[in-house]
């Protein structure tokens, strides 16, 4: 089976490493980073030459501190 293409911005992505630490966070990686990265909000910003905010999630929402 052919491996899906990975996002070219993985080496510079601030959020990608976080998806490696806890097993359930790999869902983000599978949904966005490996294959359908064109849907990722971080990918879209990077393609425009902008640096995505560290708190921007692939689905376009911003991470918020949990109180």
């Amino acid at each position, binding site marked *: 089976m052919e491996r899906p293409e*990975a996002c*070219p*911005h*993985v*080496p*510079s992505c*601030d959020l*990608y*490493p*976080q998806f*490696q*630490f*806890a*097993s*359930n*966070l790999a*869902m*983000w990686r599978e949904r966005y980073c490996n294959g359908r990265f064109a849907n990722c909000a971080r990918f879209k910003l*990077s393609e425009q*030459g902008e*640096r995505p905010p*560290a*708190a921007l*999630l692939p*689905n376009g*929402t911003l*991470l*918020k*501190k*949990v109180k």
Partner: protein
Amino acid sequence: MRYWPWWLGGLALTAVSLAHWFLLRRMFAVSSRVNALVDDARARLAGEAPMSQDELEAALAAATRDEFGVDVQPAAAKPPARHDLLFVLGIMGGGLLAALTTGSFRPGGISGELFQRCFGRSLDLQLATLLAGGVLVGFGTRMAGGCTSGHGLSGLSRLQPGSALATVAFFGTAAAVSLLLGAW
């Protein structure tokens, strides 16, 4: 100027890249680490405290619950605290170690013979040249979406065509400029 032999440099870069991956689960890329450090400093100066690793994990767990409807299990491993700062300090420490072990360490010296021949012996001019070079490197790095380590080590090892092109541009230009300055 004396350097480590090429094979020792290659082994050291491999070790650093692998350690970086296993400790941080992150591809080795110097410019993105420096960017993260600058972003962190900018946020602190603006009075916005960046999220700690624990706060980030809690926020990611909540976002994952919203997106996928699952609870996130606690991570078995975590990146070391202040790893961006440690990384940049490590680059300086590594350079010092290499200079000491090859006997080429000179306190106060910021440039080699070729540099002085091309840009003179004035400290002000040398510092201005280094600053201008740094700005140009930073500009090129942003334009190329990565630096020599990100594209040359991490990108090439992932067989990324864009990284291959960027690496050819980096090293082709460096070799051409070096030959040009050497002939000057």
